[in-house]
């Protein structure tokens, strides 16, 4: 808290504080991040709670159920999802590079790194769609499952579907940011803000992957 401003005496202390801050920033010195970034953080917190609610619901029904299936084989499912995880993690690295280039005002370079990130996102979506196709082939539906409780299908598709939607939105969002940034219409902070979103989507997968996949491997 900005204690120097709490003395209540308008005058020297206040003037100094005002001089340090831009005209609109009030007593905001400890919160010197931009509005958009703060907004994105709040959104991320909110969205994280959405996923937490869903993950808790998933864990709850899973623990409560006595015939939760273990459908995933080491090959192909786990190998495939490990590759997906790797792709997503790599895309976070390229995003870091994009943000870095953005800070240095290397706009074209930043756009290229973002394009690489989008490529990672798209690869993830394609691999995930293939994985979905295989499961649907085996008879898993939103409301039924060939093994054990039908809840498996519900939980699986709702969770991974919501996450995939986030990745897809992220790809579109990054595309917009890259284009506008390359044209000089956005600032490097906007790139950083889009990076926050991307890392968040990545992080969510780091919860879904162990909870949904690794805990449901059929040992044979």
């Amino acid at each position, binding site marked *: *808290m*900005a204690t120097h*401003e*709490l003395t*209540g005496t*308008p005058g020297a202390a*206040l003037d100094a*504080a*005002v001089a340090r*801050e831009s*005209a*609109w*920033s*009030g*007593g*905001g010195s400890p*919160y010197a991040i*931009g*509005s958009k970034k*703060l*907004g994105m953080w*709040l*959104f991320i*917190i*909110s*969205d994280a*709670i*959405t996923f937490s*609610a*869903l993950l808790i*619901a998933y864990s*709850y*029904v899973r623990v*409560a*159920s006595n*015939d939760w299936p273990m459908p995933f084989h080491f090959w192909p499912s786990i190998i495939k999802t490990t590759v997906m995880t790797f792709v997503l993690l790599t895309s976070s690295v390229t995003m870091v590079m994009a943000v870095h280039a953005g800070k240095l005002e290397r706009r074209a370079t930043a756009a290229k790194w973002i394009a690489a990130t989008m490529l990672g996102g798209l690869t993830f979506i394609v691999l995930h769609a293939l994985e979905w196709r295989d499961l649907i082939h085996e008879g898993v539906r*939103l*409301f039924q499952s060939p093994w054990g*409780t*039908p*809840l498996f*299908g*519900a*939980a699986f598709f*709702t969770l991974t579907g919501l996450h995939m939607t986030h990745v897809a939105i992220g790809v579109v969002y990054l595309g917009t940011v890259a284009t506008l940034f390359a044209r000089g219409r956005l600032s490097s902070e906007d790139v950083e803000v889009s990076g926050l979103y991307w890392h968040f989507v990545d992080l969510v997968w780091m919860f879904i992957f162990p909870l949904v996949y690794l805990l449901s491997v059929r040992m044979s």
Partner: protein
Amino acid sequence: MSTTAVAPTTGVNYLNAQYGIRSWLLTTDHKRIALLYLGSVTFFFLIGGAAAVLMRLHLIEPQGALLEPATYNKMFSMHGIIMVFFFLIPSIPAVMGNFLVPMMVGARDLAFPRLNLLSWYVYIVGGLFTLYAVVAGGVDTGWTFYTPLSTTYANGNVMAAALGVFITGFSSILTGLNFVVTIHKMRAPGLTWFRLPLFLWAIYATSIIMILGTPVLAITLLLVALERTFHVGIFDPALGGDPILFQHLFWFYSHPAVYIMILPSMGVVSELVTCFSRKRIFGYSFVAFSSVAIAVISFLVWGHHMFVSGQSVYAGLVFSALSFAVAIPSAIKVFNWTATLYKGSVSYQAPMLYALGFIGLFTMGGLTGLFLASLATDIHLHDTYFVIAHFHYIMVGGALMGYLGGLHFWWPKMTGRLYPDGWARFSALVIFIGFNLTFFPQYILGYLGMPRRYAVYPEEFQVLNVMSSAGASILAVGYLIPLVYFIWSIRYGPPAGPNPWGAKGLEWETPSPPPTENFEEVPVVEEEAYAYGEKEAHVV
């Protein structure tokens, strides 16, 4: 009233800066968006109110006077859904918050003006879904959408109604996000955290709850809609799911949501009580931090809605204790308001009457909450009219009174016009009397064992029910009077001048109605909030 004789504002202001329907529907001016919300929440209030009138008419006779039982179920569901999600939750935050947050921090607009307009559209789309559900035959799940009733047995348009509430949820989240960023980032020079008006502390705490709680409701209702349509089974025991899980998720949001409804009103009351006592609020930081404390603790008490749902006794004990704890910060506020009145030069203008009404009725509602939070008494009182009376004392006697008080206080600022003070005081009185006559008998009915959500009741409860219905008609008149004189004042009200109440705060330092950019130059804040009588003090 110290109507400073300022000539009618001839200058350009936010209302006459542009004309035409497009200039309203595409506006990004927070003040115009506030008025869009004012129109929409009033519309929903009237619909929800109409349902209430029909229910009270129906309950005049033990076997029901008016409606089919199935229709009665649809009435109370529609009433609850509309009043909670489409009136009370957006009321103060979206109307007064939108209007006042930028003005109180000395800014030109919210941090994200276009996002703000988007929030209104999202709200309207959600509202349309819900209205569709009503027109297409109604819903009969109650506002709580309990499973398996909502997913399996209910008739009607659960899907549309649940999606409507789901969609409006995003409007809340975005509005809350906008407020938090604005309060952090856009305060005028010199406006430190502890100089903020308490209304802003309350809005800040409310916004935090909106951001943290609403996503859980959204995802829960989405699951209900999925389950209803595709039978996915998360809440269906036949498929391995659990209906109690729904209750946990629902109340994890909906208990904090009751504070989304009451905290902003508490903020308004803090403003009114100091202004009309001409005294700095007693214990500023206690009032400020109690808002934050309420926001935090409110997330830990949801289980008190599930004492009889088969939750473990130990969980019940903890939830009961925490529910008692949440009453402490509420009580702190009541004590501080009362202490502010003490030795203040209190004047009883209309906004103040509403504020005093709030304090009394909220106290009643809060204290009866403690009866419900006690495990043993709740087993008797759960799902009776006692619960109905409890939350109406808080939501209608409290939150709605605060909303009306705020509307009367800032109306001159919003429109530049004064309304007739005599009528306004009269309506405050009618509302207070009508309210108590409507809801006090319901405490007794509940205590005697009349369950809620029934279309018929035993003969011996008729006297109390008729009293309640009579009170409701008085209450309805009380709400219609302000509607008439507010509309009247827009054309015929005398000009208000910048500061008709002699109040402190940045919003009063600019013309009424304010210019589009709010302040001609960036205001600099050099005094504490509510520095009433500060000048005299310095002279001494």
